[in-house]
């Protein structure tokens, strides 16, 4: 209760400071909290914003995340099972992990259609190593003695998967998923900003160039809320999974 009150007091103080600073500035430079709340209200009640901006971005982020998992998980599994494959993939993994996201986005824009495919592929390529490493490390964390015991006692494969393998994999995969989900949205926005593909990124770009700073702030709040929601949902999932 005390913590919650302190949090609310901190938030109220922040908004009061913001309101004071906004009074000394042009709305186009720093809009006040009320103006931003109004812009946020207009944004979330605008059907076109949901259909033409938010959902396309979320769809691309989810598709990129799904594709990264679909490719990264088998590669991680293969690398764990056959270390030669892991070594074979290491140079590509190092390049993908080292390449700055804007550069990869620019290359994908040049090589693909500049629209949905570009954004999905950029997200997938950047997140693929995260899942590959997480699955490989998770599999390596499986207790060999426990696995051997399960084999000796002829524990059913599904039960073995559920009781021994998945809990071990989850220790590495859970945190990786949390990071990847937030990054999927960030990379989506970045690629949309660079490619001009219609979505949250280009909406931010437009709000900036038309000096609709209240709308820009409202978009930032939407983006923060989305990342916060994804984080909260995954944290809850992680907590539930880690319960004995």
């Amino acid at each position, binding site marked *: 209760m005390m913590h919650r009150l302190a949090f609310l007091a901190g938030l109220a103080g922040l908004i009061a400071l913001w309101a004071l600073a906004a009074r000394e500035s*042009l*709305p186009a430079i720093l809009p006040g909290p009320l103006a931003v709340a109004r812009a946020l209200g207009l944004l979330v009640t605008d059907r076109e914003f949901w259909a033409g901006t938010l959902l396309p971005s979320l769809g691309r982020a989810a598709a990129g995340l799904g594709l990264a998992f679909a490719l990264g998980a088998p590669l991680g599994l293969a690398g764990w099972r056959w270390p030669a494959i892991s070594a074979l993939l290491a140079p590509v993994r190092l390049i993908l992990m080292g390449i700055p996201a804007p550069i990869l986005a620019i290359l994908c*824009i*040049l090589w693909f259609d500049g629209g949905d495919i570009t954004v999905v592929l950029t997200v997938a390529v950047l997140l693929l190593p995260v899942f590959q490493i997480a699955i490989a490390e998770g599999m390596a964390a499986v207790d060999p003695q426990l696995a051997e015991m399960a084999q000796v006692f002829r524990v059913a494969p599904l039960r073995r998967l559920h009781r021994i393998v998945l809990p071990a994999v989850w220790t590495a995969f859970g945190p990786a998923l949390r990071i990847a989900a937030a990054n999927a949205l960030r990379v989506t926005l970045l690629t949309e900003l660079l490619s001009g*593909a*219609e979505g949250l990124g*280009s909406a931010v770009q*437009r709000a900036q*160039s038309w*000096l609709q700073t209240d709308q820009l702030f409202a978009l930032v709040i939407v983006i923060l809320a989305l990342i916060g929601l994804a984080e909260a949902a995954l944290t809850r999932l992680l907590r539930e999974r880690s319960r004995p």
Partner: protein
Amino acid sequence: MRALLLFLALIPLPALAEEILLSGPPIWESAPLIELVETQPAEGVTFTFRPWASPEKLRKMVMADAPLLAVAPSPTAAVFDANGIGLKVISATITEASISIVGRGDEVASLDELQGASLALPFKGYLPDLMMRRIAAPGPESWQPRYTGSLVTAMQLLLAGKVDTAMLTEPMATLALTQDPTLVRRADLCVLWREATTLADCPPAAAVIVNATLYDRPEIREAYRTAFAALAGDPGKAAGLLARHFPDMGQAKEGFVRIRALDLPMPERADALARFYGAILDVEPAAIGGKLPDPDFYGK
């Protein structure tokens, strides 16, 4: 000691020249500003040029106390004005034949003849998109936008065959044509614009703006107009001038020679700029700040 101080006080100090900052992006319209820097034609004034790379940087320069004369996209100038950022337009620039629709196929007299061809152009809501949407609504019967992050990307998509056509400004249109001989200029945007809007003038896409410190300075306006006239007579010269601040523009001469540049002095030609804003207001009011600028904006 007192005599020495008196002596020093009587020595005439060299008059300090007023420094005026000029700014613009790497486009033909910025070249007259660099010509001013090269020729320094106004007595007691030193012109310096500093490019702006984003509207945000331009806004900061406009709001600063230092005297500023800058080239801005016309809609950006109107957006600044609508948001209370003090500025006036002293001129607008038309560069006829500077924007082309480049692609593979025959020349077209209207966008309907593109029959749903994909057309690469920068961000939705930016000036090229606004002009295209004013000429004809996008759709499967006319043109289908493929928004890109920049004009360069639009050109690259065209060269890679990822789009049917691209809207390109000079020198990129000429560069694309030299890179791929199968490409042609399918239309001149200026011609399409006049046809669709029934306006007499081509789009005055650039505005020359000054901040409050330069509102009443006829000699600065005169100096700008003289520099503009010198370049309008020899548009290819702009490439060399721009290359001093934007090295890549050194190769732009071939594209620039075909430009016909017109200066619209304000407030005398305010009507042409106001009609352009009216046309943009029809398709996207937010792009010019939601309303037409007041007469004061044009220095009336």
